[in-house]
């Protein structure tokens, strides 16, 4: 067998590659000449990915700062917040003694905005938008997305949605404050809450634009993966990242339109006098005319998206983590096909479990039986994934860097947060735990922090591909260990609060004897939140500093990875590969096989090689 590491890959692509240039480009790349077309209205998937990422970061900082303000209220309810008045203005109520308190209305606005921003803008757009855009064309061997124009629109609709949401923060009646789920009637009736006035109008318009963005992106991802794979790249040779982006996009295309429909009915009820969600309401001193609607209908429509949505958030990170764990262990991902199957199973099941958010909503308790069964079945493919990740580490030769640490941390968080889902998915136990801090702990760990860990792993790992430089490893590792400890310190104790029956979304616990005795715990959580936020600032400094000053990449394949993105030049231009497109000859997980450290996908099967996966 010839020595694979001696093969000149550039030459290989040149000779073996696929020539897709059916006409000549004498003028060069005239589409990306100016500043505007290169950095703003770019149609290059790599630039759009960076746009999604950086916009996501801006939103993440806003969302996190909001959480710090309400954590301050929960941990230190008696502290003087007058110093926040220059930023928050009227939302800090200052009494005669000069002591400032957070207004209750704004507390709920903060909680609502934190949820909306993190779920949709950061973990959907910022995460899936970034990595699907960056990696799909690069890893399947395509020059760009199927429709670069729709891809650009996808970003700009997201941007527009963001602008509208941002404007709503400055309304005199405040942004929407009825929870990120926007349950009617609270979200529909301006009499019910200040946030349900103009704030909700902007919120719903923003969300409709966001749905448009997700759909444009999703259609593009699916089309690209199905049609633009390079020669030899069969579906069973796709890296797990691409599989996860594909499945995520399909889930998004099928579920987001239902959300748009739900919001359309919301808009009708709010402004056209219809009664889809309203019935028999007496508010603000008068009985409303609306009868015959159902508040539960909205919950069904919302969670028909809402549940798949949490998988839209977590699935891409599953792909990213699988890929990074395999590369860092220098071993193939354990059970590649089982990983694809479990991804598909999870995403299929995600469509028939939505009502597990509604066990206590008043819907017929009989129906619950089905949703409990399907919900708890999800534990099976999820368990398979966890076992496969752990097995990937087994007998590896693990390379510890920021990316692989975050991937390992991800598995820990996914286990911690996933196991509590078994309690909540069991309707009987949910009677007690529903809408308590146990739920807060559960979803923050499993789809909040875990998704962030997947995202961080991805950023550290593909930063060299994005910017041709490395992020600082030492700062990255401090970022990892600090965030892991901080995140657990924030969310682990919240399980205890939940088991003690403390409801979520409480401005203050003082009114209730049963909930008011966890002052110390709440202080610790708040301090941990500030500590964790500090580390994220460090990460941001590292990110932007390394963008300009980081250590330069000299080896086009710095991690010794097999996937196609590392066969491009260090700073790939528009079109990704200079000459021919690479041709694929194998799956992406030939690590430590036959005495070779790694065998990239473009290397043809060598004589005498053991083949375990075609």
């Amino acid at each position, binding site marked *: 067998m010839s020595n694979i590491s001696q093969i000149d890959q550039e030459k290989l692509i040149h000779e073996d590659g696929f020539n897709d240039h059916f006409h000549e480009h004498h003028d060069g790349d005239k589409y990306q000449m100016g500043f505007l077309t290169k950095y703003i209205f770019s149609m290059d998937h790599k630039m759009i990915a960076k746009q999604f990422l950086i916009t996501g970061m801006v939103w993440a900082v806003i969302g996190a700062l909001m959480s710090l303000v309400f954590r301050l209220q929960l941990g230190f309810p008696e502290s003087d917040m007058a110093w926040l008045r220059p930023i928050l203005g009227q939302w800090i109520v200052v009494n005669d003694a000069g002591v400032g308190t957070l207004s209750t209305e704004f507390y709920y606005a903060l909680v609502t905005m934190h949820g909306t921003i993190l779920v949709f803008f950061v973990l959907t757009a910022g995460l899936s938008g970034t990595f699907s855009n960056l990696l799909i064309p690069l890893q399947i061997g395509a020059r760009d997305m199927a429709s670069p124009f729709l891809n650009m629109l996808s970003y700009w609709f997201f941007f527009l949605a963001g602008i509208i949401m941002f404007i709503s923060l400055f309304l005199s009646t405040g942004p929407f*404050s009825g929870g990120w789920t926007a*349950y*009617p*009637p*609270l979200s529909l009736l301006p009499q*019910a*809450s200040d946030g349900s006035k103009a704030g909700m109008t902007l919120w719903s318009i923003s969300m409709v634009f966001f749905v448009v963005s997700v759909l444009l992106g999703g259609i593009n991802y699916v089309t690209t993966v199905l049609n633009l794979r390079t020669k030899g790249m069969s579906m069973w040779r796709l890296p797990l990242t691409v599989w996860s982006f594909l499945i995520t996009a399909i889930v998004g295309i099928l579920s987001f339109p239902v959300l748009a429909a739900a919001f359309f009915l919301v808009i009708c009820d709010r402004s056209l006098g219809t009664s889809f969600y309203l*019935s*028999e*309401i007496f*508010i603000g001193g008068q*009985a409303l005319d609306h009868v015959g*609607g*159902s508040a*539960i209908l909205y919950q069904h429509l919302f969670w028909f998206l809402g549940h798949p949505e949490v998988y839209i958030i977590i699935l891409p990170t599953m792909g990213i983590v699988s890929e990074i764990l395999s590369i860092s262990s220098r071993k*193939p991902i354990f*059970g590649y096909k089982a990983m694809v199957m479990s991804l598909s199973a999870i995403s299929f099941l995600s469509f028939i479990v939505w009502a597990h958010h509604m066990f*206590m909503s*008043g819907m017929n*308790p009989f129906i*619950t*039986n089905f949703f*409990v*069964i399907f919900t*708890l079945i999800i534990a*099976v493919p999820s368990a398979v994934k966890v076992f496969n990740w*752990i097995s990937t*580490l*087994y007998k*590896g*030769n*693990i390379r510890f860097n920021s990316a692989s640490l975050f991937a*390992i941390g991800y598995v*820990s968080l996914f*286990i911690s947060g996933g*196991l*509590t889902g078994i*309690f909540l998915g069991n*309707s*009987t136990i949910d*009677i*007690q735990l529903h809408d308590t801090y146990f739920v807060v702990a559960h979803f923050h760990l499993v789809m909040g922090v875990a998704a962030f860990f997947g995202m961080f792993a991805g950023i550290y790992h593909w930063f060299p591909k994005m910017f041709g430089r490395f992020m*600082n490893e*030492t*700062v990255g590792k401090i970022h990892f260990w600090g965030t892991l400890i901080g995140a657990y310190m924030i969310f*682990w104790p919240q399980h*205890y609060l939940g*088991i*003690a029956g403390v*409801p979520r979304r*409480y*401005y203050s616990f003082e009114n209730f004897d*049963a*909930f008011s005795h*966890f002052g110390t*715990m709440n202080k610790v959580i708040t301090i941990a939140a500030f500590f964790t936020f500090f580390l994220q600032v*460090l990460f941001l400094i*590292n990110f932007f500093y390394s963008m300009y000053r980081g250590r330069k990449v000299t080896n086009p394949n710095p991690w010794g990875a097999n996937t196609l993105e590392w066969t491009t030049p260090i700073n790939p231009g528009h079109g990704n590969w200079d000459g021919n497109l690479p041709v694929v000859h194998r799956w992406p997980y030939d690590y430590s*096989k036959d005495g070779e450290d790694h065998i990239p996908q473009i290397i043809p099967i060598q004589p005498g090689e053991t083949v375990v*996966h075609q």
Partner: protein
Amino acid sequence: MTAFIIFICLVLLAIVIIQVGKVTELASKIKGEEEAQYQSNFWNSNLSLIFMVVFLGAIFVSAYYYKNSMLGYGPHIAASKHGKTIDFLFNVNLWFTGIVFVLTHIALFWFAYKYSGKRNHRATFISHDNKLEIIWTAIPAAVMTLLVVGGLDAWNDIMADIKEKDEYIEIEATGMQFAWLLRYPGADGKLGTRDFKKISSNNPFGQDWTDTKNLDDIHASEIVLPVGKKVRVRITSRDVLHSFFLPHFRVKMDAVPGMPTYFVFTPTTTTAEYRQRLSRYNEWQEPSDPKDPESKPRWQVFDYELACAELCGKGHFSMRRVVRIVSEDEYAQWLKTQKSYYTESIKGTADDPNAGGQVSAEELKLRRETFLAELEKVKTQAADAGEKVVQLGHIGFETGSAKLTTESKYQLDNLFEYLQSNADVKIELGGHTDSIGDAAVNLKLSGERAKSVADYLISKGIDASRVSSKGYGSTKPVDSADTEEARAKNRRTEIKFL
């Protein structure tokens, strides 16, 4: 000022970390990248192991520390029958998931430690293992089946509505921004009908006062329930979603406008018993008011609480009501002190749609007793005391017709009952009108009205020979004054013993 100092410290810390980062990057350049990577592997794999130990240790220590404040543990045994089932299932789940949690975490961090990259090492190429994968698909599937079956079995039991034969108390909780309204059914044991359009400041539930079931309904300021008795809480909302949450009883159900929901449960521990249980724990001996060391210990002022568990607006966190579980006797006592809201606040006011006031069950009982007593008294009076006449009160006719109003039936039924049990009594029903209007018409109408009363009794089974009727028109006024008061007295139906 402290905040500012902390901020400056953090900035300095950030600068230090970044500088350290730069220096280590330089150092790794000098050492060579490979060497630096092996060192990083060494440190971080060891940190993984340390993290695992500290993390698992911290979990056990903290769980033990907070054990007694969590529901289901220490003093907080569920105060309801089904609550104990929920706590049991919680613990079953905790065992299964706890084992999985500990094992997977040990495996994850141990492997990370053990297989950290070392010089001259190579990973083993393992792509999959079908047998292993089938095993670890099958085991979770089996365990989940177990948990699902156990959970659903309990669920269908807990959520079942009351059955026909059940003896239970029904109460109603209505959520509004931002309070819980509570309603008890009163003596008849039935909650009256409501209409959201009738809600007003003095009719918070929108009760329909023409529904007699409403008349004895009680508005309570706290939930008081007898121990050991099944309770069905009817849960509704006036405005937005709320959720009826009794943490100590493991009860939770959303309140939805336009769609009443319910939760059936049986309290098993009285407030006094729960306090006794708490008194055995040190943390409950602390003074209830931290500022006043002389105040009662916490366990003495403990109360069960009702909270809201569905975001309902800015006052969501303040919807508290006290719940008291008492013995059956105490409950009966408490119930006696509660007044019907109708009698207290509505009857006879401008908001009362019932002319002269609608009657409650208590009122009916009172009327029946006085009426029967009067009949008995007149029947047995001495023969020389004049005519044996009793006024048949509380009956009415629709304007200008002889049709009896619905409310009349109560008193007529009492009369019917009297005639049935006194077979020797024969009566004449006399109709009287006031002097307004045409005398001939009055005479005819009074005759018809008296007859329709007689007909009612005959239709119920009294022999026609015992009941006769006669119209007197305005010929026999009891008060000849020309006032509305006098005229009202003259419009009457009399029972004459024959």
